[in-house]
Structure formats: structure tokens, C-alpha cells
């Protein structure tokens, strides 16, 4: 009799232990499912945020393009100048400071360098003869005007520095601030080299573009006066092929 109770008791005990185990397992599964839900929600939030960031970036680019087009629309021959200069500039920047090349503001600054020319009258901008002194003074204000146009836009704050300083010279003889050497932002020092490169190698109504080799030699000759010698060295290290590709491509 007592034995029967013992077996029964053990059986009951086992039964309740099993039930408890089942409950615990169910609870653990529930927690796991809950945690998985957290993970998937986090992932979806991440993806949504990423998509928004991409939208924002695309809008930045479109805005910069619109501003660039506003400048170039007035000046038929510059055409793809801003595009080419930006490509040369990025190619060169990647070799000097890859991290800087990743900063989208650098490309924006390259593209927008002449945005201040919107304030220069057609008569001066398109004048075939040499500019009078007062006209030249006005023309030389375009970096500051451009800087004033874009500096208030947060995503262009660094680009504004390139716009302002793209006519400075390594020896301090440039404008508007007469900065010299490394006081000139690196991106602006890079820009002034590729701006000259593009000006020399592009066909103009009154002369054909110079061959790349000739442009390289002339730029080399201005290292240390107009240009940062280190930037000129970096340009020399770039083979012809990628530069020719930029020069000859159509928009």
C-alpha cells in the first residue's frame, strides 16, 4: 500500500516537473521571439534611416548641380568645365589625402568654385579684350561673392572655403585674402592646379587646347610660386591615361 503511494507520488512529481520544464521552455521561446522582434525592428529602422540619408544626399547633389548650372548657363564655353575640374580635382585629392576625397563637400566646392560669377555683369564676363582696372577689380570679387552665397548653407560650409580661396597663390600673391602656403586650405591648393590644367588643355575659340605633356611642364614651372609643390608632385605621379579620359569625355 505504502509502495503504491510512493510510486504514485513519484509519478506525480515527475509529471509536475515536466510541466514546469515545458513552461520554462515556452517562456524561453517567447523571450527569444521577442528579442528577434527587437532585432528585426532595429534592422528595419536602420534601413529606413539609411534610405532617408541617401535621399538627403541626392538632394544635396541636385542642389549643387542646379547652382553650378546657373553659373555655366551664362558662359557657353565653360560648358563642362566644372565637371572636368571636379573630376581632375578628386583624382588628385584621392592621391594626396584619400579621406579628404571622401568628404562630399570637396567635390561640391570644386563644382561651385565660380558660383560668385552670377554677380558679374555679362559685359565683363564675356569681354574679349583685356579688362579695365575697375572691371578687373569687380571680376576679382567673385570668390568672395561665391563664398557669401554658399557659406550659410550648412552642408556647404567647408565647400565655401574652396570657393573663397580658389584664386589664392602658394607665394601669397593671390586673392582675395593673399594667403600663402599651408594657410590656404589643401582642397583649394589642389583646385588651383587642376583649374589651370583644365584651362590649358581645353580648346578655346581662339586656340586649341595644349597637349597634356605641355600643360604638365608649364604647371611644374609654377610649383613653389603659384602652386603648392607637393600638389604638383602628386599631379606628376598620375599617369596620363586617367587625365586624358577626363579631358576627352563628353558631358
Amino acid at each position: 500500500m505504502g509502495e503504491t503511494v510512493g510510486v504514485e507520488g513519484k509519478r506525480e512529481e515527475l509529471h509536475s516537473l515536466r510541466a514546469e520544464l515545458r513552461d520554462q521552455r515556452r517562456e524561453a521561446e517567447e523571450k527569444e521571439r521577442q528579442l528577434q522582434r527587437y532585432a528585426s525592428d532595429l534592422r528595419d529602422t536602420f534601413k529606413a534611416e539609411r534610405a532617408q540619408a541617401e535621399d538627403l544626399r541626392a538632394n544635396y547633389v541636385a542642389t549643387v548641380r542646379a547652382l553650378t548650372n546657373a553659373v555655366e548657363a551664362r558662359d557657353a564655353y565653360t560648358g563642362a568645365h566644372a565637371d572636368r575640374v571636379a573630376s581632375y580635382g578628386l583624382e588628385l585629392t584621392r592621391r594626396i589625402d584619400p579621406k579628404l576625397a571622401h568628404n562630399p563637400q570637396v567635390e561640391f566646392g570644386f563644382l561651385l568654385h565660380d558660383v560668385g560669377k552670377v554677380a558679374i555683369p555679362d559685359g565683363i564676363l564675356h569681354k574679349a579684350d583685356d579688362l579695365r582696372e575697375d572691371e578687373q577689380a569687380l571680376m576679382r570679387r567673385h570668390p568672395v561673392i561665391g563664398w557669401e552665397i554658399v557659406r550659410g548653407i550648412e552642408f556647404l560650409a567647408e565647400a565655401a572655403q574652396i570657393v573663397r580661396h580658389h584664386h589664392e597663390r602658394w607665394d601669397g600673391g593671390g586673392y582675395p585674402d593673399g594667403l600663402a602656403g599651408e594657410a590656404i586650405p589643401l582642397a583649394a591648393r589642389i583646385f588651383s592646379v587642376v583649374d589651370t590644367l583644365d584651362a590649358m588643355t581645353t580648346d578655346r575659340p581662339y586656340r586649341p587646347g595644349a597637349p597634356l605633356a605641355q600643360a604638365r611642364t608649364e604647371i611644374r614651372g609654377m610649383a613653389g610660386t603659384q602652386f603648392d609643390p607637393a600638389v604638383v608632385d602628386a599631379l606628376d605621379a598620375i599617369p596620363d591615361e586617367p587625365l586624358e579620359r577626363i579631358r576627352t569625355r563628353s558631358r
Partner: protein
Amino acid sequence: MRSVLIVDDDPFILKLIATTLEDVAGFELAQAPDGIQALEVAKLTSPELVFLDLDMPRLDGFAVCRRLREEPRTADATIVMLTAAAGDAVEREAEEAGADLFLTKPFSPLELLRLVDELGGSPAAAGH
């Protein structure tokens, strides 16, 4: 298809990471529950990113990491070591085995997401 490999002997962690990273940057997610299987899966999928648990039976994370580095298809993969135990010695050994990154559990799911996203080539990372 480009793939990411997740290796952990805890099936829950495996599932949790897989859920977090599912469909984030167009990678196929491969999984392995131990070191030996990790190497087999890696041979088939040539993962570009590997999340690798350190403490596993059969073959631990260090050994798996070294073998992945010897194998040409995974020599350049980004290998992220996951471990419960932090410490300079462990980190140094992970580095010597060829790990690129070392994350202590509980790791941040956002960090995993960012790693996958960067590798997937967000516009900023892809350059111009």
C-alpha cells in the same frame, strides 16, 4: 552572390544576428554552428565579411581565423571576432590570427549593421 558568414555555436545568437542583418545590403547570409563547418561553408560561399565567435568546440575562433586567412578566397575578407571575454591578451591573439575587428559580447547590433552597410557600398563608401 556576395555573402556574409556568421559563426557561433549558440543557435540563438546565430539566429539573432541573422535576423538583424537579413536583407540589409543585398548579402546572402550563411551560417555555421562550429569552426569545422565554418571552413566548409566559407569554401562554398567566399564570404566578404565573417562574424566569428571565439569560444567554440572542435575548432575555436583563432584557428578558424588563421585558416580563413590562408585560404585565398577568404584571405581579404573582413573578419570580426565576437567574444564574451575581453582583455589585451585575447585581443592581441585575435589580431595575430588575422582578425580585423574585435567585439565583446553583448555586441551592439547597430555596429554589426554599420559594418555590413559599409561593405555593401553605401554611396559615401563607394566613392565617385
